[in-house]
């Protein structure tokens, strides 16, 4: 939190840019970007998405917080992203610090650095950014001149592996949390920074919803398991609660989406149609930690789309959520928007839909203006049995009927998404995927009388996540996953005629094992992350940069001193009484309920959705004082007349 540092690094950065690839990603100047006077701001935030600009810019979380913060007259928020190794090398050579893209200010000069972790594979990029910013990697070595480093995003629900490197973490929705943190920092600065950094962190921790790792001690049992996690300061809560933003209609962000000049992974106006999901898929961390379901109303969605398109000039709209067809008024939303934009250049998309013939109808509405390129369904498990284990309630009959409906209505390509390495999985469960795919093609050919239909089978590797019923599960070793995928590939191609119509995409199991280490790791894993980073680890989410061997070597170097190893964190099943590294972080889910749901999984019992059946006491609503907010509102989208060309 230095007062007078240079306001911009641009003059020193600019001469480096002709020497790096895609320099446009470092210059800012997007539509929607905000640059404020440094001196007029009482509180200054740098917001980071710890991946390349092309991935980070479209991130909804960062865009929402950027706008919410900049709407405050005395708050300044700027963005920073991970720089590629070519620029990192030049920045080190020329002493240029990590900078924001908005006004090219040094990140080290801000009061706060908020980092949004959608995935754990961004941890090494956090270290690069801190190091380039001149911020000591260990939070304990920072003083009053350094920004407070706060982690957010889904990975922040277990920030223990990066506990040494962050000052704080916020669990859950950020809209209100950032404003409350801002208020605390504003007051503390205005009062002349009483008590320094320690006092500021204490004030944050005492809110009950900001986790400050240094105020908690972790002790271990001789066998390596955690003995207990306990606060070491007065007034600090035993468990830190997640944040939940209720009434999404009063938070209609982003209003002014960032429109990049550089090419990015998503070039669309994205609107969340609801948050949370109670489908109860047991592997899905997002569905567990974002409860309860809170819908945005059809009319607010209509206004946001109209204004977002007009502001941005985007021609694509994404209607986002964890299971978009579950909105209580999804029919009206899709029909209303399709009517409004019929005959224009606007295309609408609805990712994350269930396997359900109704979704084909929705997709029909949405593709009025566009091409019917492909539909994606996610049965997740190949056999009925494994789908009961993971609580993905899709019958084979539903799946075939849905896909055949899609083929019959003109779609030529259907993508089916599955997971491999699920708890209790056998070879047979995975081989069922081949049989399903064959039946899909046969039924599709019979229904359409055409051989011109295709299906792509896409396989992801299961990673157990904190705050889910599978948090106790053993990970499947990568060699077992790879072997099953090889058998599956052979089974798909065993029938040449059918196999030709089936595409097969998968990733090998090794990166997932590391993701598993990081997602269920404890504070001892921090040293592994640091070692990997020292050995050159960067951009671990990118296959061309990821090195499994580097992680294995670093783990072998660091972990044995604690009597644990990579397998201990990943392929070991936990028992009911083990203290989990994130037990002191409260997502609202009752641990007893999670354990019961884990037992139900092992017994192949399913769990219904509480939107349509009675509450099953997962614990979130009473402990967080929240409730389901769903329609129908009964409102309609009125037509608006597009400008005639």
């Amino acid at each position, binding site marked *: 939190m230095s007062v007078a540092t240079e306001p911009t690094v641009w003059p020193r950065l600019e001469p480096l840019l002709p020497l790096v690839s895609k320099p446009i990603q470092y210059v800012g100047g997007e539509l929607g970007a905000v640059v404020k006077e440094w001196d007029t701001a009482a509180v200054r935030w740098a917001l980071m998405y710890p991946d390349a600009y092309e991935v980070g810019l479209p991130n909804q979380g960062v865009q929402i917080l950027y706008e919410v913060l900049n709407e405050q007259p005395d708050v300044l928020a700027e963005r920073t992203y991970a720089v590629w190794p070519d620029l990192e090398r030049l920045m080190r050579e020329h002493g240029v610090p990590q900078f924001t893209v908005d006004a090219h200010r040094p990140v080290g000069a801000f009061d706060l650095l908020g980092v949004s972790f959608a995935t754990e594979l961004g941890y090494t990029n956090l270290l690069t950014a801190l190091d380039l910013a001149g911020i000591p990697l260990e939070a304990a070595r920072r003083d009053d001149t350094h920004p407070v480093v706060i982690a957010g995003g889904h990975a922040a629900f277990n920030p223990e592996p990066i506990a040494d490197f962050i000052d704080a973490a916020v669990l859950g929705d950020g809209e209100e949390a950032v404003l409350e943190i801002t208020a605390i920092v504003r007051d503390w600065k205005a009062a002349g920074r009483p008590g320094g950094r320690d006092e500021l962190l204490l004030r944050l921790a005492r809110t009950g919803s900001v986790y400050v790792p240094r105020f908690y001690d972790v002790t271990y049992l001789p066998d390596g398991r955690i003995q207990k996690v306990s606060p070491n300061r007065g007034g600090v809560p035993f468990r830190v609660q997640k944040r939940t933003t209720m009434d999404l209609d009063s938070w209609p962000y982003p209003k002014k989406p960032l429109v990049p*000049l550089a090419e990015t992974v998503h070039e669309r106006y994205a609107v969340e149609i609801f948050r949370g999901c109670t489908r109860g898929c047991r592997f899905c961390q997002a569905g567990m930690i974002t409860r309860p379901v809170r819908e945005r109303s059809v009319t607010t969605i209509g206004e946001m789309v109209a204004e977002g398109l007009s502001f941005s000039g985007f021609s694509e709209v994404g209607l986002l959520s964890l299971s978009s067809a579950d909105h209580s008024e999804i029919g009206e939303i899709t029909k209303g928007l399709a009517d409004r934009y019929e005959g224009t250049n606007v295309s609408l998309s609805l990712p994350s839909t269930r396997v359900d013939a109704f979704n084909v109808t929705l997709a029909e509405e949405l593709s009025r203006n566009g091409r019917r390129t492909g539909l994606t369904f996610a049965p997740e498990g190949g056999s009925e049995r494994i789908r009961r284990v993971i609580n993905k309630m899709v019958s084979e009959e539903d799946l075939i009927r849905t896909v055949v409906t899609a083929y019959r209505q003109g779609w030529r390509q259907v993508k089916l998404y599955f997971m491999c390495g699920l708890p209790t999985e056998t070879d047979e469960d995975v081989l069922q995927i081949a049989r399903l795919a064959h039946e899909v093609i046969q039924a599709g050919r019979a229904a359409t009388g055409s051989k011109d239909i295709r299906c792509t089978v896409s396989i992801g590797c299961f990673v157990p996540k904190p705050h889910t019923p599978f948090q106790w599960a053993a990970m499947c070793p990568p060699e077992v996953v790879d072997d099953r995928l090889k058998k599956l590939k052979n089974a798909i191609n065993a029938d040449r005629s059918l196999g030709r119509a089936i595409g097969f995409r998968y990733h090998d199991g090794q990166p997932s094992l590391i993701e598993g280490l990081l997602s269920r790791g404890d504070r001892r894993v921090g040293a592994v992350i640091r070692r990997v980073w020292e050995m050159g680890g960067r951009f671990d989410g990118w296959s061309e940069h990821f090195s499994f061997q580097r992680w294995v070597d670093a783990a072998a170097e660091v972990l044995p001193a604690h009597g644990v190893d990579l397998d201990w964190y990943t392929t070991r099943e936990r028992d009911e009484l083990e203290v989990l590294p994130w037990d002191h972080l409260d997502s609202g889910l009752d641990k007893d309920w999670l354990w019961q749901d884990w037992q139900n999984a092992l017994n192949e019992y399913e769990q219904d959705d509480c939107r349509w059946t009675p509450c099953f006491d997962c614990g979130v609503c009473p402990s967080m004082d929240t409730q389901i907010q769903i329609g129908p509102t009964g409102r309609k989208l009125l037509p608006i007349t*597009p*400008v005639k060309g």
Partner: protein
Amino acid sequence: MRGIMNKPQPEGGQAPVVQRIRIRYAKRGRLRFTSHRDFARAFERALHRAGVPVAFSQGFTPHPKISYASAAPTGAASEAEYLEIGLQARMDPEQVRAALDEALSPGLDVLEAVEARAPTSLADRIDASHWRVELPGVAPDALRHAVAAFAAAPEVTIERLTKQGRRSVDIRGAVVRIDVVQPDTVPSEFGGVPCAILDLVVRQVTPTVRPDDVLAGLRVVADLEPPVPPRATRLAQGRLTAQGEVADPLDADRDGEVVGEDAWSRA
């Protein structure tokens, strides 16, 4: 509704082009790092936002009717980039200019718009570029020495990386004029360090000779090694006149009056 374009349906055929507008735009400041592809995407969005009734091509995936004259390389600034759009409804060119300028980020500035009147295409009216290249950290005398050697050389062969691998190109013939500008006549942005300024007129030949190639040529003839990457700005594009000047390609379309901001730098 503002911002939403009507996309004519393929089966009905596309609405015809009723007016063609030719535009000069600039890439300035930090947005000089915009690549041509980046600009093209931003420009299409700007057409949406500005509600300019652009016409679309025929076919299953209709594209807006936009054609570009040769684009400056990524990293080079420009005061003189050109494009042409076909409209399906007539508009006042100045209105189009103002609306597009407003819809693009500051730094991508739409400077002039004129209705296409003359039959020749923009490409037919452009065969040369006028560049200014700032070389921070290079003393004007060192540059003068290198430029004299370059001008005196009958040919200047540089190595270029192409898709086929390394290739030697003689760039001397394409360089019509090469001078050192007196530092006091053009203020330098690089306070404190000496900054030599190169003035170039280059014929647009195939393969294109860019300012970077001329700098490579100065390295070949006189070992000139700028300590930091030089900064090139295209000041003008157009037909090379008998006097070695670059003529304004929009003159043929103009009614005598200039629409929009005038080019302060036109040669």
